């Protein structure tokens, strides 16, 4: 019962904050008389969402697909490569700084290259999502696995465990809290990556992704539709973030402080 109340409190607080912002926004637009072309009111955006729901939902599904697939690929690559880098000191010295430098390269600059390699459409959006989401998972995996309790490592060594066994039974489970933190960051970045990928590689039609909906609406001077598409892309990002947070909570809440804190912080 206490957990349910905490959960309600945890969900209610941000909902109330969003409601207050929307009301303030609506009042500000009405009072200031600012043009709907520059800043449409929340009510106008809501009406547009309703009227263009087919187009927006179709676009959200496309973007969600690109983000999710890109995120999953980033998670698998990040965890496997991160584990290898953590396990081999030479790789840690040679590849980790390189990965950090590559992370500094702006995605917008890389996206045209992805179009050259993968062509227009979903594969480029997926690749863009993967490229931006992989680094936080990689970094978190490395940090998590090099921070495993040396005493536990010694215990495994003492019992003659192979490197593979130690990774499966110690390094990977012990680093799950760190990996989940990396995955949470990656979830938000994957949606950004997918939208940027869609900007450069998407094409129109009834199932145009949100990136294309935004670009088309901008050219048509439909600021309300731009806002509606942005709102839906935020929903996609939040859904992915929420799914990862739930998964993380299920995996670590019973034994790690990071899982407990989620509920503690909501009190």
């Amino acid at each position, binding site marked *: 019962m206490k957990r349910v109340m905490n959960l309600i409190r945890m969900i209610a607080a941000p909902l109330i904050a969003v409601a207050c912002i929307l009301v303030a926004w609506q009042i500000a637009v009405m009072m200031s008389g600012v043009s709907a072309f520059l800043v449409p009111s929340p009510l106008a955006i809501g009406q547009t969402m309703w009227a263009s729901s087919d187009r927006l939902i179709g676009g959200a599904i496309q973007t969600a697909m690109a983000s999710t697939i890109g995120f999953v690929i980033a998670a698998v690559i990040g965890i496997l490569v991160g584990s290898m880098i953590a396990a081999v000191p030479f790789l840690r010295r040679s590849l980790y700084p390189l990965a950090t430098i590559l992370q500094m390269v702006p995605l917008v600059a890389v996206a045209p290259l992805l179009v050259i390699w993968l062509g227009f459409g979903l594969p480029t959006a997926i690749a863009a999502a993967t490229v931006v989401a992989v680094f936080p998972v990689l970094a978190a995996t490395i940090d998590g696995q090099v921070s495993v309790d040396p*005493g*536990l490592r*010694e215990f495994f060594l*003492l*019992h003659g465990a192979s490197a593979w066994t130690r990774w499966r*039974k110690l390094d990977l*489970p012990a680093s799950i809290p760190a990996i989940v933190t990396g995955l949470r960051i990656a979830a938000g970045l994957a949606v950004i990556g997918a939208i940027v990928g869609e900007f450069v590689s998407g094409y129109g039609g009834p199932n145009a992704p949100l990136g294309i909906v935004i670009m088309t609406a901008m050219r048509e001077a439909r600021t309300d539709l731009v806002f509606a598409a942005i709102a839906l892309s935020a929903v996609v990002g939040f859904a992915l973030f929420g799914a990862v947070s739930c998964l993380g909570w299920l995996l670590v809440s*019973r*034994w790690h402080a990071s899982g407990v804190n989620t509920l503690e912080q909501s009190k």
Partner: protein
Amino acid sequence: MIRKLPTLDFQSVSRIFSGGVYALKEVSFSIPAGGLTAVIGPSGCGKTTLLRIAAGLERATTGSVKFIDPDGGAYERASENLSVCFQDARLLPWRNVTDNVALPLELAGVSRNERIARANQVIAAAGLSSAQARLPAQLSGGMRMRVALVRTLVTSPDVLLLDEPCSAVDEFTRMQLDEEIFRVWQVSGATTMLITHSVSEAVWLADQIIVMNMGSIHEIRKVALPRNARNRTSAAFLLEVETVMRSLACAAGVVVE
């Protein structure tokens, strides 16, 4: 089948750390087969280094540790015959008590059914059945150490190395853990080396005490008290404790009035 318990033989073991710092200097002694030897001494005297060399976790700079069979064969170390309990419990926080106790068997490739049955057996013998589904975070510090001690039994070890298992608990819990150590030693029948700071613990548990200081052995002392006379409040016990305490103080250069 008759078990062939080894004698643990330290032969002129020295350990020199970088910068020429001696952790151990020519340490030689034997732990008789099936015996319990306590190594005591002030912090930094090399006790834990000695245990880590015996466990194969560190190498001696010179000298060696031999496990000598009753038939005369000597070998360096065989992990399947050796169990270690460290100062901290070293339990996997995501595994319950049963799965933690079963872990050494799991790493040895024993089937799940077999290892869980064996783990539950040693847990029940220790009176910990009510805690077997709990995670380490749900146990007190003393309980976690009891689980770590019980885990040493699961592989039926021939050699047991205990590195200050009671160092992080209060006096009352220490006495409870001493009972557990005694039970573990009796059940396993293993040749046992106990590192401790506590003189009374050493006298209560051991049949031989090695007093160390500055990396060297100051005294090797047989505990003459019979097992049934090891009452912590008896005059004979307290006298033995005082004698060992004086030896320890003498080794450290402390004047005892």
